[in-house]
């Protein structure tokens, strides 16, 4: 198997799983897919280096998250200046309310908290591993996890009692 074939094999084995993790980290399927594709493109261009890494999937995850983070930083300059508009969502999506609500809840989290949650709960990384990957102290990772989970739980908690309750995130989404 040459280096290119190795990247291809990694693609077949890891692409979907990485997209799933990046969806939680970014709150967007399109952004997740784009970031993971970009990571594989870079792997293909540096196939020999890529193949020599200890953990190729972790390499891809780091690259994809860096790509997504860069884009998020740029996007934040826009959306951060218009929070009111972002809240005034009025377009209904009746088909998948739970998923939309969860994505809406994720988008309310700071990107750093989303990343920590995705790495810990989907990529099954330990706190120390996340800290090493992100280049931050373990305590910071713990704080991000704690705050992120609390915010997520609050956003997805039913707003009222009864069988037809909606989550707070759904309420925000529905306006």
């Amino acid at each position: 198997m040459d280096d290119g074939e190795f990247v291809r094999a990694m693609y077949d084995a890891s692409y979907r799983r990485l997209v799933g993790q990046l969806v939680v980290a970014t709150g967007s399927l399109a952004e997740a897919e784009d970031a993971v594709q970009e990571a594989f493109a870079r792997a293909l261009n540096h196939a020999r280096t890529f193949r020599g890494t200890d953990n190729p999937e972790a390499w891809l995850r780091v690259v994809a998250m860096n790509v997504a983070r860069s884009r998020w930083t740029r996007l934040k300059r826009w959306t951060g200046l218009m929070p009111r508009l972002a809240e005034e969502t009025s377009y209904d999506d009746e088909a998948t309310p739970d998923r939309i609500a969860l994505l809406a809840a994720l988008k309310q989290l700071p990107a750093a908290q989303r990343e920590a949650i995705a790495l810990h709960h989907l990529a099954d990384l330990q706190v120390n591993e996340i800290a090493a990957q992100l280049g931050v102290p373990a305590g910071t990772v713990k704080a991000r996890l704690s705050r992120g989970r609390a915010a997520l739980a609050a956003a997805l908690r039913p707003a009222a009692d009864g069988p037809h309750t909606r989550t707070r995130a759904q309420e925000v989404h529905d306006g």
Partner: protein
Amino acid sequence: MADFDRTPLAELAREAERAVSPDFEQVVGRARSRRRRQRTATALVALAAVGAGAAVATALPHRTDTSPPVTHRSSPPPKHLSAEDRIRRALEDGSTRIVAAADPDHVLVVRRYCPRRAQRCWWGSEVSGAPASRRPAAQVGPVPVAAGTSGFWIEPPGRLLGLDGSVHVPPAGTQGDATPSRPTRDAVLGMVGDGGFSVYEPSRDRQWSVQLPGVTSPPIRALVLTDDGRIWMQQDDGTRALVSSSGDGGRSWTRHDLPRLASGRYGKVLWHAGTVGVPVYDDHGRLQEIRVLRESRWTDVPAGRFLGLRLAGGGPVAEPDIAGLSDGSLYVRDPADRLFQAAPDSWTSWSQVAETPAGLALVGSGDVLLGIGDDQHTVYRWARPEWQVVD
């Protein structure tokens, strides 16, 4: 920590895993495009930066990144950057996007500069084919970032220039583009990623007022302005397409949703031959059919007829780039960089008209077909029978 239920997150991830259609060929194409860009040692770029007030010529440095990945950390920008340095920084940052529009005689290219960690973005504009003395007549913006719009107001004569879809990062295989434009003095359409789609109108003091709150979810895939004054908006999540139209500037919408696909995915909404169409691709990105809205019903253009394009080309048309013009003409660029044109009254009759520069992203802009090179900066204009660089 133990009380946290990860089930919804895991389900979300699994749904995403099911929704995507892995296609390694897209990665190969993307990697090839990256290599081409890296081989471009220098690119001379003439820019007129709004705010800087003067044309700036700058050369892009050769970049080769072979280092292993490290966690990205933005460093604080140095103070007192010159305009030239800011532009170079923006280009290196990859945040420069292009919106192009045209009239029959001139091509106006608008570039957005968002330096890393800058407090605001600004706009630069260039007009090709116009004497320098006329260039100020095409003054652009600046568009206030606070409004979140990526539309442009040009004066005189007042013209809607289309929308920069690049803020919402599209899936691999597509490129950010500008939707077809239509002259108007009444409205400017804005579009951002999470901020969604909004309608803005310039007031007397040239400030911007929001006429429609943002539509944020699902993500907006495409916007098309048709010559009958309607706005067509498409949102989708891969296998489903939510299509809406508005005849009153976005104040009210009529839904024309397409059904969920058993396999494959929808492409971007198009306007051609007096009707709206949406391409359907299979799991490998090959064009299967176009669903056309006729008398409020979606009907399929027979795959076999449309695939005449594929058969004539000698190979599968994967991820074709499609652009429509305001006169209804429709162009397709295939991965082999061939340009096809559809007959004006048909979705099914195609002819190859030319080759295109490698990796060209087609942009239908009013009545002129433009293309953005895969360096994301060079703009081409289709001047039959060849492409011309807009400089």
